[in-house]
């Protein structure tokens, strides 16, 4: 079992930053359910856990990006009310969140030195000196291959992330928050970051960061707090990876997952051969009728691109897609929807990519089947009303009112509406991208049962989830994607630990 060395306070002068019983919920989904945390000056503190476990939410609360529903945030022992990251900055904290606050059409130098540009004659900005100063700053931090004269939009995501970090460090913060700072960085860039972090630690700065990558975490962190299920589970100074992974993944009982139907042997509803492009390399897979194929791995390793390509929303550079055995060319989602038994996509961000929030449930449900509910272009109102009400009721959308504006529904109900759209379209191949993200527990279970029912009916489901536990229990088998390739294929009996470590460990072996 776990024999961690529990954390003792690193020094006695009191924590630099504290969070006490912080609670944050988004529309019925509890992101943080009363978590407490503290970090001391001169400490590097890592937060680990799966996606949705609460670590990102905690960092956003401490950094002023979000406001807690309840609980207290303290800086140097004083309770504070942070309304924005600027408030945190005024208290000596700097933040690097995953949403970068950069200006794509301006140069790196301009971005780095905004607000403190060097002035020349007439009090005007001296651009040449600005670029030189930026170069000096970058060189001083050991970054010689970032060219400050480049536009932000012309450099890689990794470089942009580094620039964001540099900007935060330039502010000489006493507290530094880094949310997934290494997600786009390669090893030597990560080493650069950690060198920076060690220097800051020596200067007495508290550094709090989240990460998925175990090797990084143990190499730099003084203390590690593990999150699971919207709570902190424990804080340790040393812990083995196995122990951490089991803490992260948890030992949830399979009873909350429906029993998996046996996979029917049969034809492949969907087959992919050598798919490449948009960051994917040589992806091949088959999806049988009535099969639930899980896709796992860390976010950003090609999952989104794979799903979009299979839906015709991205063009591959190579490879074939076969639907019901026949090769198809998917030039747009329309082609995908009409290919064979029909492909459907429930995308990642239902609010911006899926639903029309100011419009009714009815309109959202029938958006893909307009022809079927109309006659010569005229919508058959009663038919539409009846069908949508029936669908809303069968999915237990609350309230099952087709006239209700979708934007007023909870996240779980919104997701059901989006799924319902494709059920109305009677699609045979369903691509579910993180379909339970931001959904409350009760609705999650309903969706699990639904997925099972759909597979039983003979539909094929490709399921990506950032929750490895879900994948382990919901899918017939799981493909783990890493850096655009299939890194592993797992067969039952599957455990969430296997999926997590497959994604996490292999990343370290890069």
């Amino acid at each position, binding site marked *: 079992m776990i024999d961690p060395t529990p954390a003792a306070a690193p020094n006695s002068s009191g924590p630099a930053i504290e969070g006490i019983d912080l609670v944050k919920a988004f529309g019925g989904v509890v992101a943080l*359910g009363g978590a407490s945390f503290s970090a001391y000056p001169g400490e590097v503190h890592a937060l680990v856990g799966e996606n949705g476990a609460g670590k990102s939410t905690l960092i956003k609360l401490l950094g002023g990006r979000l406001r807690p529903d309840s609980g207290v945030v303290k800086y140097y022992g004083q309770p504070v009310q942070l309304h924005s990251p600027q408030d945190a900055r005024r208290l000596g904290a700097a933040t690097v969140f995953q949403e970068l606050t950069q200006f794509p059409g301006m140069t790196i130098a301009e971005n780095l030195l905004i607000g403190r540009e060097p002035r020349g004659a007439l009090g005007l900005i001296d651009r040449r000196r600005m670029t030189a100063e930026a170069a000096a700053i970058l060189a001083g931090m050991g970054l010689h291959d970032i060219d400050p004269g480049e536009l932000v939009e012309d450099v890689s995501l990794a470089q942009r992330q580094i620039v964001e970090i540099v900007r935060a460090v330039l502010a000489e913060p006493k507290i530094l928050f880094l949310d997934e700072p290494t997600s786009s960085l390669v090893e030597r860039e990560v080493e650069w970051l950690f060198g920076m972090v060690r220097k800051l630690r020596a200067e007495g700065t508290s550094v709090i960061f989240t990460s998925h990558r175990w090797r990084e975490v143990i190499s730099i962190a003084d203390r590690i707090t593990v999150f699971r299920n*919207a709570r902190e589970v424990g804080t340790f100074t040393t812990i083995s990876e196995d122990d951490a992974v089991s803490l992260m993944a948890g030992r949830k009982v399979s009873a909350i997952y429906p029993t998996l139907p046996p996979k029917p042997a049969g034809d492949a509803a969907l087959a992919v051969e050598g798919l490449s492009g948009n960051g994917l390399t040589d992806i091949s897979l088959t999806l049988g009728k009535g099969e639930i194929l899980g896709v796992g791995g860390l976010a950003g390793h090609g999952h989104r691109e794979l799903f979009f390509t299979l839906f015709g929303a991205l063009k591959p550079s190579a490879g074939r897609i076969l639907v019901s055995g026949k090769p198809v060319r998917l030039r747009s989602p329309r082609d995908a929807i009409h290919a064979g038994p029909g492909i459907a996509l429930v995308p990642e961000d239902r609010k911006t*990519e899926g639903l029309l929030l100011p419009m009714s449930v009815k309109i959202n449900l029938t958006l893909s089947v307009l022809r079927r509910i109309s006659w010569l272009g005229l919508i058959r109102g009663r038919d539409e009303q009846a069908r949508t009400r029936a669908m809303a009721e069968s999915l237990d959308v609350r309230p099952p009112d087709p006239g209700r*504006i979708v934007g007023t529904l909870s996240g779980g109900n919104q997701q059901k509406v989006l799924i319902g*759209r494709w059920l109305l379209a009677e699609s045979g191949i369903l691509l579910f991208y993180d379909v339970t993200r931001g959904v409350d527990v009760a609705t999650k279970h309903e969706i699990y049962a639904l997925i099972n029912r759909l597979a039983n009916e003979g539909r094929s489901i490709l399921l990506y989830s950032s929750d490895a536990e879900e994948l382990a229990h919901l899918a017939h088998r799981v493909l783990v994607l890493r850096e655009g390739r299939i890194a592993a294929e797992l067969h039952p009996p599957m455990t969430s630990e296997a999926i997590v470590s497959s994604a996490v460990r292999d990343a370290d072996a890069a």
Partner: protein
Amino acid sequence: MTDPIPVVPPAAPAAPPPPRPFLGLDAERRHILYAVLGAILVFAVGAAVRPGFASPASISAVLLVASFVGLVAAGQTFVILIGGIDLSIPSVLNAAAILLVTSTLGDDSRAVYGITLTLAMGAGLGLLNGVGIAILGVPAVIMTLAMNGIVEGLMLGLSGGLTCQACASYAPPVVQAAVHGSLLGVPLAIYIWVGIIVIVSIVLSFTTFGRRTYAIGNNAVASHLAGINVPLTTILLYALSGFFAALAGILLVGFGGQASLEMGTPYLFESIAAAVVGGVSILGGRGHYLGAAAGAVSLVALATVLQTMNMPEYGRDILYGVVVIALLLAYGREQEGA
């Protein structure tokens, strides 16, 4: 559940309450109601200021002029609903008027030919706008602005500055009658407009095409991922805008008898103002033609009231602008509260 760490279990998630309806109407219908009430208010004020303003003859005169604005506003509404705009209607309208007279030469037997040709021209020009915007990716402001210049140049050049012999022709009597004639004391042109209002409203509210329009205006990405053909719908909408501009040109030249230059110029801003006053959001996705029609009536009635009060034209312009801004501020605050 045997999970050792109990998560705060949420109850069945309570959906946030729906926004309070006013008179049982949602925001979009409310704006239409306001526009209609506004029109009535203007008539009432006008009648108070100038007795006889609310007489049937006077009202129908206002409605007649409003119908021209309303026709152009129909096309404008379609493209504004997807977040676009059509700056080419002045010259398309003008070109349509000229094409009608020169192709029919005032002859009723050629009326059908002339009208069909003219409407096809309008739709065709609109189609070109749509292709430039949807397929070439040219911003709507630029594409339609450029088209305005292109059509104006062609129109002026081909007609020799309206000095060609055919240009002085009259519109066919049947068209003139369609505008000036009356049935039950109401000018026929108003019946035409009412018919258009009915058709456009049905299209927007009850057809798949209308549904797609609102979807794209609300969220083009989600619409695309739902399988809607966004470029095709966009092209059709701009074609419709050109069609309505041409239709307005036909009726206007029927009204005036002959074609002239700069016929279409005032209708650009008027059509946009009518739509906005009627609750159509310039960002797209919200609003209805009924509102734009009511807005057209309100604005024309306002201008007419001011005219009968002998307010000089500049006064009307100033008040026009002030009223539009006041309405926008009122609408804007509403949307934040809703």
